[in-house]
């Protein structure tokens, strides 16, 4: 118990907060689906309200801090999307090249724009947005060492978070729907199987490199057909996996180069996958202040159409326009095409600030020429436009 006494002593050191801050945001979101749903229990439109508050305090000359960040959403039609999550509740201690974190935290690994292949620490909150960028908070202990040879992060994660899926009324969603209540695990310890992960990273001139290893419950389930109340459903099944990955990004002149690759064992036959590409930016377009980036990324998965991801034989081509104006206007648009089966996915994301505290965002997603073999086949009628107004405080 000696470490407990050390911990108490460390925590007590200058307990009076030197700095504390509360911030947050509330967002109203409307989605309009432009085609009739495949399942008549689904809706043509949806309204939703979400909010997030963050309390942050730091003491001990900034060496220690605590962040508490709950999130919640109220959804008009989807009971599953009406959800709350503790995004963060983490205590951080750091001192000269050493960092310790304990609690619920969020960690991002990766460099590419479209598909976040190697990012595995946090479970994806697919209810929030199909883009895979929203994450559930992950309980963990994390130690980081920063040395001349790079940064070493070691993670211990005692509890697994299941992916949650849209309810019968939810949209966009798979057909048949995924029934979370029937979730299966490969290991008898289910969500209590502890995960471990290690990541080494460093920068070398223009390049950043990261090498990681993960062992534990895979975040991405295999979906197996099953029956729920006489209805055909998909059942998520979580396997114990080993995954080694590498990520690389470089800024060379006007080029940003990005590459991610992994090898995974334990989820069916072992396989490799990679994604990578570039973003080339034309600065000061037409002698003005705005920048135009041209993006291209390849996504490849050894499993092909058997993959648990739609990004298995795909090419992304996109444009990013950044106005560099007072309102922070930005537009990102592009298309992901599967070169095996011709399925296409179009995406547009635009945002702009109003005044100091408001932001308007627009997203449009549509699926076309979707092949029956493609994992996105059940989304073929789910094209939608989303408008989101956020107030920050």
């Amino acid at each position, binding site marked *: 118990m000696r470490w407990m006494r050390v911990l108490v002593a460390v925590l007590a050191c200058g307990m009076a907060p030197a700095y504390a801050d509360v911030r947050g945001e509330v967002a109203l979101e409307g989605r309009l689906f432009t085609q009739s749903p495949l399942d008549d229990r689904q809706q043509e439109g949806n309204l939703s309200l979400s909010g997030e508050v963050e309390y942050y305090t730091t003491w001990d000359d900034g060496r220690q801090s605590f962040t508490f960040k709950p999130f919640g959403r109220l959804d008009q039609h989807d009971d599953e999307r009406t959800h709350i999550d503790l995004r963060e509740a983490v205590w951080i201690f750091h001192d000269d090249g050493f960092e310790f974190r304990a609690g619920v935290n969020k960690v991002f690994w990766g460099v590419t724009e479209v598909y976040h292949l190697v990012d595995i620490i946090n479970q994806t909150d697919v209810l929030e947005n199909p883009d895979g960028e929203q994450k559930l908070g992950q309980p963990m202990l994390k130690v980081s060492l920063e040395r001349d040879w790079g940064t070493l992060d070691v993670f211990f994660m005692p509890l697994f978070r299941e992916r949650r899926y849209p309810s019968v009324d939810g949209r966009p969603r798979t057909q048949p729907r995924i029934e979370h209540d029937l979730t299966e695990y490969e290991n008898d310890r289910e969500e209590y199987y502890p995960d471990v992960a290690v990541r080494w990273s460093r920068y070398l001139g223009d390049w950043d490199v990261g090498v990681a290893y993960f062992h534990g419950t895979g975040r991405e389930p295999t979906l197996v057909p099953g029956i729920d109340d006489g209805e055909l459903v998909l059942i998520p099944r979580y396997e114990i996996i080993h995954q080694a990955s590498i990520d690389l990004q470089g800024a060379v002149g006007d080029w940003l180069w990005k590459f991610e690759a992994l090898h995974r064992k334990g989820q069916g036959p072992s396989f490799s996958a990679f994604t990578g590409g570039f973003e080339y930016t034309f600065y*000061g377009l037409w002698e003005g202040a705005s920048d135009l980036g041209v993006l291209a990324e390849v996504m490849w998965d050894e499993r092909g159409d058997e993959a648990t991801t739609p990004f298995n034989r795909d090419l992304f081509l996109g444009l990013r326009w950044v106005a560099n104006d007072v309102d922070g206007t930005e537009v990102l648009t592009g298309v992901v095409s599967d070169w095996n089966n011709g399925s296409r996915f179009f995406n547009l994301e635009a945002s702009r600030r109003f005044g100091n505290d408001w932001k308007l965002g627009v997203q449009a997603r549509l699926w076309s020429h979707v092949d029956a073999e493609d994992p996105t086949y059940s989304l073929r009628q789910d094209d939608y436009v989303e408008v989101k107004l*956020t107030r*920050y405080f």
Partner: protein
Amino acid sequence: MKVRPLLLALSLTTALALPALADEAADKGLEIAQEADRRDTGYHDFKAELTMLLRNKQGEESLRHMRTNSLEVDDDGDKTMIIFDQPRDVQGTALLTFSHKVEPDDQWLYLPALKRVKRISSRNKSGPFMGSEFAYEDLASQEVEKYTYRFIKDDELDGEAMFLLERDPVDENSGYTRQLVWIDKAEYRPMKIEFYDRKNSLLKTLMFKGYQQYLDQYWRAREMFMENHQTGKSTLLTWKQYDFRVGLEDSDFTTNSLKRAK
């Protein structure tokens, strides 16, 4: 630094047409820049808070608030971290820069919503910083090696004696062909800079106001007012609080420390 009192003593206000004197003008310009740099070396580190008041032609205003940490690096450019507080949608966003004397800077941007650290291209020197009239290169660490110099003449500004220098950016990606810099003779502080765009037209004027001295040596302007003559927009940058030698180290300027920034 090599001081050449003979050259310094020369008055070059006239007859600049002679090539020999042009070299002397370059030498004298460089010496003034080196002296200004020498006087501003050795503070080790500082923290500061700043606001930017952006005003457009119609008089509409917009406010930015940020904090900056800076660390001197021997024989290289500074390491700096800028943490944004306002506008609210970018709160917690942080920019880490390892500036270099001649090579392009290394830059990382931390996006708090995704917890993502992105390497960004530092080629975009001439782009506006946060929609303001300051370009990235205006705010970057001002290393002597980033320009070539030419002494133009002795001048006066608000009754104070000045050196007037021209400095030309070495980097071809700079948004400027040249800058005219007024440096006061008493303390070697920049008081006014005129920026000429790639077509050599006057683009912007920067005025430094309210200099205060820290640690009995280092002068910092409280206000920097940038006016864009071509668009009618302006930005008033106000430094709220300077704390020198607060004990910042290399470990406070890493991608891990970016993720801790709030």
